[in-house]
């Protein structure tokens, strides 16, 4: 039952309480920073956490939310002397759960489980890493970019957003990522797959790391398979537990259904059905 090879940092086997340090609006999104006193300081980019407000989780639209919600960590800053880690999450308010989390204030409790799932695997020496993020999907790309930079791995970052308001999230990146928007209100008016195609045609000896809405991931997949470029896609799926207990979060793969939360969320594009 050992799976030593997968890029996964183990999680403590219980939900714990982190302290919200701050909630900041970043364009169309909320950036929540929470101090995790117990969890590992080295989650792998692409891994995620199950989050819930520590109090009054429920009583929203149609009496929800009830279950915790899955969020990729966008940044992890270890505190000196193993005092824990400050975790950042980038949220888009799309329903009662994200809405409630966006209402959290500094000092309030955030219930958290993780890190969960498997993250991105590092590029081979001969592979140029290309990072592609769409909308709220930039969250895992942010920490992946941080890590590759820290290791001096040169990796272009291509981001796509609905509008300039959403694109404000690009400012979170250390470098100056390439930005496309659907409405051209900032950066290039294009789908992010256009600059990706250009990059890949320039030099196909690459590996693509992508996270974003399904249509975008489908386009990335198609493009990469057409050009024979390997890709790692960070998927989303409706989840109840996040650690493989409910079998609810399945995606179709070459050999049957796989659980996004334990077999993913990062999958090799080739492995998907």
């Amino acid at each position, binding site marked *: 039952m050992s799976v030593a090879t997968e890029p996964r940092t183990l999680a403590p*086997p219980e*939900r714990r309480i982190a302290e919200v340090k701050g909630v900041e609006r970043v364009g169309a999104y909320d950036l929540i920073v929470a101090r995790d006193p117990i969890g590992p300081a080295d989650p792998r980019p692409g891994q995620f956490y199950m989050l819930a407000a520590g109090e009054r989780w429920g009583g929203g639209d149609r009496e929800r939310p009830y*279950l915790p919600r899955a969020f990729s960590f966008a940044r992890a800053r270890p505190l000196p002397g193993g005092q824990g880690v400050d975790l950042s999450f980038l949220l888009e308010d799309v329903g009662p759960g994200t809405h409630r989390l966006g209402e959290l204030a500094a000092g309030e409790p955030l219930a958290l489980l993780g890190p*969960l799932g498997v993250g991105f695997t590092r590029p081979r020496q001969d592979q140029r890493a290309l990072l592609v993020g769409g909308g709220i999907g930039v969250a895992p790309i942010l920490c992946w970019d941080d890590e590759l930079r820290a290791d001096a791995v040169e990796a272009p970052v291509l981001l796509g957003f609905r509008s300039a308001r959403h694109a404000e999230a690009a400012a979170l990146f250390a470098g100056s990522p390439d930005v496309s928007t659907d409405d051209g209100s900032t950066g290039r008016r294009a789908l992010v797959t256009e600059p990706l195609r250009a990059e890949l045609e320039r030099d196909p000896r690459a590996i693509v790391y992508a996270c974003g809405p399904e249509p975008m991931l489908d386009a990335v997949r198609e493009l990469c398979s057409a050009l024979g470029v390997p890709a790692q896609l960070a998927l989303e799926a*409706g989840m109840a537990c996040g*650690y493989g*207990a409910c*079998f609810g979060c399945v995606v179709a793969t070459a050999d049957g259904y796989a659980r996004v939360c334990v077999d993913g969320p990062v999958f090799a594009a080739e492995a998907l059905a």
Partner: protein
Amino acid sequence: MSEVDLCGVTLRGPILNGSGTFDAIAARRVFGDALLERFPFDCFVSKTITLQPREGNPPPRLWETASGLVNSIGLPNKGLARFLELDLPSLAELPVPLCVSVMGFSHEELAALVEAVGAFDEVSLVELNLSCPNVETGTLVGADPDETAAALRAARASTDKPLIAKLTPSAADPAGVAAAAQGAGADAVSLINTLKGMPLHPGTHQPWLGARTGGLSGPAVRLVAVEQVASVAARVAIPVIGMGGVACGRDAADLLAAGATAVAVGTESFRDPAAGRRIGDELAAFQSACKAT
């Protein structure tokens, strides 16, 4: 925590997991050996195993509702042969007794399943998931006392291991079904399984779940469970394993007060993998507080 005798099997405490709500193998991948050091349950119940492998239902399989969850997982599993080969050895490493849940779509299947899993020393108990459609009538076997008794007889003849009959809450008279199971050789009954429910897509109002309908669980069904456990416990002499919406020690105490011998935690584990342990601790504290006074 005080020990519990469940059909001759000694448990360190009264908390089980509901079948299909905890995958100890996946959880060990996620949590490592810390899971075994702080294992949340006093007895582990496997996901329901069928004779043939099953892919399960097409996604989406989950819908969150008011204080509850509707699922249409569809019993995905490796099938008996590969379960015994691949999973049983890992499950045998768990620090608690093992109960294997099985479902047969015919009496022959059921007998084969029970005989096969019952033959392993690692398997302390066998649970029969009776929430399966009768292939002819389409109705649930577990909804009918006679069909339930027939299923139990088929299973009883195939093993000496303690047999737990997992009842469906969709029966008009759950106590009658429980009595029939007892009469046909069940050593215990467990309830409730999920209530039938159908969520619709918020935009299209078409069925949300890939399988159209699913099963409702969680706090929303808790008091339905307390009522059915109470009426079943009043009717049968064998132990009752109560479950349905248990989220805290008081919920577990409610089911024990209603006549249950042990309590299973399902959906609450999705909110916290350690829920079973927390609930057991709360219950123990609660019970010693009551003894004290």
